[in-house]
């Protein structure tokens, strides 16, 4: 390995970012600086700040509400972080602009469901009735296979064309899962169906079995007895599903660490240096004898397998999956926003971006809107026009807080544009393991075509 990219990278891959900055100006700056030195400290610090804000918002409703909200926020933060990490491998490291994330997640979770579900279920489509680990592997494998297929256009197309192809692919996947004809076809050929537009129920979460015998409420295992006795209705008064949710969060955290270590290891390997070289300048990487196409295919396969796994861990634990609206392209954009916030190219950034996105942009506005709505004593007008016609700011506020979901998306869009304008490198963008400042995705005006 003696290509110039490798030597350029060695400085930034050896751990923390090259400091080379002026001494901090104040104590706070020094603290921030110290926190930035440690990736783990940064993530934990962000999580604690989110927890503090959530507690402030709900502490009047009692411990159960606080712990419940924290559970929701942590779950969302972790699953977004998992997916963002997978995307970071493709986009952040290799520069492959894949906006079909939702499709690959759907393939993962649907394959898992079809393999694991019982061949003769009480309701919903039949499955193959194989054990859960087989299902998870099959889901990852199927997502990887489709990833390999999606990589074929990536070998020839420029970034924005690839974006449209992958978006089209994810919509084809969603429409296929939605189709009852496809469902019937699968039932007749392999004996397992998708459930069409109604979706399918997911197999029982094994974590639930750790706390409850056969997953039956009111029949706890020894561990369940212990945990429920201390924290549950007999102890601190926290609802049992929330406690089981925290158990699953521990599993998710384990997977997150696994993802992170895998990607860090990959990023620092010779293979990782080739990925970054492709991102920086494909032509140079090719000229130096790197098999650019093979690397791209591998990255697509690994990234899509991880997306499939993230889809299984996320939607597989939610009881029921259906193609619409769960796997609309909007889901892909959420993950992209998480990666962009954290700074594409940084694994720690992706984790942080996932947490910040889930708490501040995704769940935060709803909770704040709901809290504000509770304070207003006014009837909600039936429509925007009625709210405006009332000429009463309080009535208008009531309408706005009751319809906080669309406003949240408006806010999301504005944040996205703001970040792209002002901080395209994200919160932790200075950590991007870059070799050069040239952006390869730029299309030379009037340059040569692909042919």
């Amino acid at each position: 390995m003696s290509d110039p990219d490798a030597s350029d990278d060695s400085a930034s891959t050896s751990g923390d970012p090259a400091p080379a900055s002026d001494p901090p100006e104040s104590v706070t700056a020094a603290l921030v600086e110290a926190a930035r030195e440690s990736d783990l400290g940064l993530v934990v610090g962000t999580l604690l700040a989110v927890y503090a804000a959530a507690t402030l918002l709900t502490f009047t409703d009692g411990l159960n509400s606080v712990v419940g909200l924290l559970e929701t926020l942590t779950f969302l933060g972790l699953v977004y972080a998992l997916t963002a990490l997978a995307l970071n491998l493709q986009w952040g490291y290799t520069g492959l602009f894949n906006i079909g994330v939702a499709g690959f997640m759907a393939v993962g979770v649907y394959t898992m469901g079809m393999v694991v579900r019982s061949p003769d279920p009480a309701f919903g489509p039949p499955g193959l009735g194989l054990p859960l680990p087989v299902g998870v592997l099959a889901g990852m494998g199927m997502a990887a296979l489709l990833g390999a297929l999606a990589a074929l256009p990536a070998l020839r197309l420029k970034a924005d064309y690839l974006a449209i192809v992958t978006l089209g692919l994810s919509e084809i996947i969603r429409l296929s899962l939605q189709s009852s004809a496809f469902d019937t076809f699968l039932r007749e050929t392999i004996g397992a169906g998708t459930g069409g537009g109604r979706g399918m129920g997911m197999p029982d979460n094994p974590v639930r079995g750790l706390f409850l015998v056969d997953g039956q409420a009111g029949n706890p295992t020894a561990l369940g007895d212990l945990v429920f006795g201390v924290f549950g209705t007999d102890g601190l008064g926290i609802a049992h599903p929330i406690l089981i949710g925290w158990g699953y969060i521990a599993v998710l955290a384990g997977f997150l660490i696994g993802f992170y270590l895998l990607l860090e290891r990959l990023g620092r390997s010779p293979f990782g240096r080739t990925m970054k070289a492709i991102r920086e300048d494909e032509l140079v990487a090719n000229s130096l004898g790197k098999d650019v196409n093979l690397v791209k295919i591998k990255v697509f396969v690994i990234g899509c397998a991880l997306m499939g796994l993230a889809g299984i861990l996320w939607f597989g634990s939610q009881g029921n999956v259906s193609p619409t609206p769960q796997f609309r392209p909007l889901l892909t954009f959420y993950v992209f926003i998480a990666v962009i916030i954290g700074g594409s190219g940084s694994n720690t950034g992706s984790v942080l971006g996932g947490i910040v996105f889930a708490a501040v942009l995704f769940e935060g506005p709803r909770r704040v809107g709901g809290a504000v709505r509770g304070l207003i004593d006014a009837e909600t007008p039936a429509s925007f026009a009625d709210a405006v016609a009332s000429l009463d700011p309080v009535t208008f506020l009531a309408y706005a807080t009751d319809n906080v979901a669309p406003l949240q998306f408006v806010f999301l869009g504005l944040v996205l544009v703001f970040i792209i304008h002002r901080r395209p490198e994200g919160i932790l963008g200075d950590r991007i393991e870059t070799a050069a400042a040239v952006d390869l995705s730029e299309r030379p005006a009037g340059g040569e075509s692909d042919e």
Partner: protein
Amino acid sequence: MRARPGVLFVVLLGGLLLVDLTAKLAGVGLGPIGGSLSVDRLGSNLWNGIVIGLVIGLAGIGLSMTYSILSFANFSHGDLVSVGAFSGWGVAFLIAGFGDVPVRALLTVRDAGSASPGDIGAHILTTPAAILVGLLAAFVVTALLAVALDRAFYKPMRDRDGIALLIASIGAALVVRYLLQFGYGSDRRGVTASVDASNLAFGPLGLSVNAHELTILVAALGLMLAMHGMLQHTKLGTAMRAMADNKDLALITGIPAERVVTATWIIGGGLAGASGYLYVLLRGTIQFDFGWLLLLLIFAAVILGGIGSVYGAIVGGLVIGVVFTTSTIWIPSDFNQAAAFAVMILMLLLRPEGLFGGVSTT
């Protein structure tokens, strides 16, 4: 790519489908090939495909122009389509139902109040003036919004690469779409009134043509002809083609780049708005995110015709429209959209420069 197995495969597949179609029309069945299909059904499929294709092609013109002149894939284009529909129909309703129905119900396209489409009575045969003024309003409002979005979101990043602009346009799309939902509500609702005897039958062809479909045909062709005249016979059109062809050369020859960009947004945005308005006239219903759901089909049309080619966008729109409606002859109807996307992906893989690739500017 001298030897092109992919192209051969597509040609073979197309030939097979054609043989199958002929066999179906003749009512001959040979194993998996053939079956039965009435000429009437094929005719109405083709006609529906052409009408949808004209609307998609109209929207595609703007997308193709921004793609070639500003060098980015504009993901907010679909939401401009929705904006045109809502603003245009608000104005059309205001004219059609003024006095009988509260203004707030009219301007919000029936979000407020309880007036039914029949109460408002918007239809090309009964209130032609309202429908035409609505089309004009759709063009103007969307053009203004497109310019405003450009000033706020895209102008500060003119020198950035295509992917950064693409991401910004996703942000802009979210802002526009959900402001529409906030202002107009999220439910799907009927718009046009039904009028007796609005179908014209063409006996020998077995076609039944709706008055609204004829309106769309005339309006879309008129707008496309106007576009052609503008591009070929005005100074602005020449400047646009020059910018799309070679930006640096155009700047050196003294073409005022910013003015051309503004004109691009006005025309492209206005056509998008008009196509959204016409799409609602065709479907008879409106929903805040229909333009976004249409966006991928519009992209498919633009890519099929060749990015940057205005005429390609029109032809691409027609092809996508016909694929969309006639594919139901062979595959289940819930796959027709997927079929259109598959055609787009195949095109990108086999001939990325599009059907009209050679002429990338006009």
